[in-house]
């Protein structure tokens, strides 16, 4: 008995020590994992910090009023003008063309997949859409420049080799999978009983889809459209390849124009010294881009809260 307890004692303290060690290492692992999760927050802080500090340098040289109201964008010329509206117009026109394609097509595909298609079709269609969404944007740029533009020139002979129209159309095709997939998720989340109620009243599938399912899923649809808008506004390579890169204050999609994103690419391709005013313009342009996407995201979250249907 006494021999036993004597040999037990060191074992117990051993185990206690081991327990304490375990406790320490558990805490250590938890903080390492937390640090990994915090990287995403650091990324955001880094983005805001970089864009804001470089933009402050920029706005010390250029007044905000000039930035917002000037109708020319020629930061690299001797007679420098810094009118961001020139780039914003290109961004808005190309995004408008893209959304005019992507929103109807995406919504139709979503309604078809969630309300009409049988599960087998859906099993095949969703991966195909995913593949479409996974195509690199540079390849889409090639597609816009070398396939879509020549096709469009057969319809509109006066269309130039670079245009917002062909870039926007291809951008629309690129965004379709995002909108279709998110909208379909939203519509499939609508409870079956609502559809059954509608069918019981004698409504057809299409009538049910448009008058029951879509209104019930409207907050999800809005969210998918907002994501589509963010994609369109932030898309770079299709525009850099197919829309030309000359700044052009226009609302006509048949013309070539630079967007915020393609301007950044154009400057980055050149060899601008770190700290020059030209170098700072791309951060001011980037900040504008971030603010536009942020604006749409806030709008999207507001829409979602405003129209959320609870069952």
């Amino acid at each position, binding site marked *: 008995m006494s021999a036993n307890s004597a040999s037990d004692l060191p074992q117990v303290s051993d185990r206690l020590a081991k327990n304490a060690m375990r406790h320490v290492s558990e805490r250590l692992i938890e903080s390492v994992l937390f640090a990994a999760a915090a990287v995403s927050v650091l990324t955001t802080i880094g983005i805001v910090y970089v864009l804001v500090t470089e933009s402050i340098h920029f706005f010390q040289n250029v007044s905000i009023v000039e930035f917002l109201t000037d109708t020319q964008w020629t930061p690299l010329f001797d007679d420098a003008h810094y009118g961001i509206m020139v780039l914003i117009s290109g961004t808005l026109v190309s995004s408008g063309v893209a959304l005019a394609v992507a929103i109807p097509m995406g919504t139709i*595909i979503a309604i078809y997949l969630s309300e009409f298609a049988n599960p087998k079709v859906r099993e095949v269609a969703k991966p195909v859409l995913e593949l479409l969404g996974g195509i690199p944007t540079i390849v889409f740029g090639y597609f816009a420049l070398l396939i879509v533009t020549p096709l469009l020139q057969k319809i509109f002979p006066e269309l130039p080799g670079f245009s917002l129209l062909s870039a926007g159309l291809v951008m629309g095709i690129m965004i379709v999978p995002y909108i279709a997939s998110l909208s379909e998720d939203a519509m499939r989340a609508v409870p079956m009983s609502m559809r059954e109620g509608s069918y019981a009243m004698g409504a057809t599938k299409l009538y049910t889809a448009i008058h029951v399912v879509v209104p019930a899923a409207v907050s999800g649809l809005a969210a998918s459209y907002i994501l589509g808008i963010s994609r369109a506004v932030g898309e770079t390579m299709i525009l850099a390849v197919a829309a030309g890169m000359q700044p052009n204050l226009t609302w006509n999609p048949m013309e070539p124009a630079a967007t915020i994103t393609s301007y950044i690419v154009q400057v980055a391709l050149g060899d601008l010294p770190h700290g020059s005013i030209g170098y700072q313009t791309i951060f001011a342009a980037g900040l504008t881009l971030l603010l536009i996407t942020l604006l749409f995201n806030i709008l999207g979250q507001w829409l979602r809260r405003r129209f959320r249907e609870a069952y």
Partner: protein
Amino acid sequence: MQPMTTEQIRVLIARGKLKDTVFQALGIICLAIGLLVIFLLVGDMLMRGLDRLNLEFFTEFASRRASQSGILSAWVGTLLVMLVTAAAAVPLGVAAGIYLEEYAKRNWITDIIEINITNLAAVPSIVYGLLALGIFVYTFGFGQSILSAGLTLALLILPIVIVATREAIRAIPSMIREGSMAVGATRWQTCRYHIIPYAMPGILTGVIIGLARAIGETAPIITIGALTFIAFLPPVPFTATGMDGASAGLFDWVMSPFTVMPIQIFNWTSRPDPAFEVNAAAAGFVLMGMVLSMNAVAIWLRYRMRKNIKW
């Protein structure tokens, strides 16, 4: 309301059914357009680039003469950048996912991290390029290297990896955790021996989709100022000194200048000489092959996973 005759009701039903059919056709057409775009793209690039798709194309550097240009530096660069991206994004993303699912308490810090990850997914990729230009290239002094590019793309795909990890972990029933804890395992041991292995296929799917996205990203890499004309390969570790004593050379390649496939394609598409279009097509076909096969592997993995689920 006038009661309808049988004939009128029949007409009404027929009209409703017709509308249903028309809409179904519309849905199928929209889906077919997506499929058509993929076929048109791949087909066109294959037709145009077929002449150049031989072994020399993969073993030659880019050249001023279109017919002698190859993609050696581009595919090697892509491979190495992906290596850095995976090495950074996988541990960080998986750790962050585990933290958020298994460790995080419901408090405002967790809320901020979660909102932040959602918002980061909507930030345009070119903004990550600006972040990298300001932080990695100039503040950390990594320069226009493979390391800068790899880390940039890692930050870009981090939200994808985190979301995939969380979804995979969430699908594991809580009885697995309870069983493990009941036999005295700590939280980390539960994660290490149960959660991570079971979540592995899901995590892998997310990682592959993330890397497939990163491989085609062009804008952020152009923004950090990657050169477009590279006629050399990054230094191979141990080449000069053999297997021993050359540890200094092991990571020399991460600081090397580089080019990647999408930049090579962009470079070739933006040349006025149409002879380079052929090269762009061939390189685009190779890039599409990489991206589509990675996506296909991910889709197949997910399909197998759904079939092999054990609980």
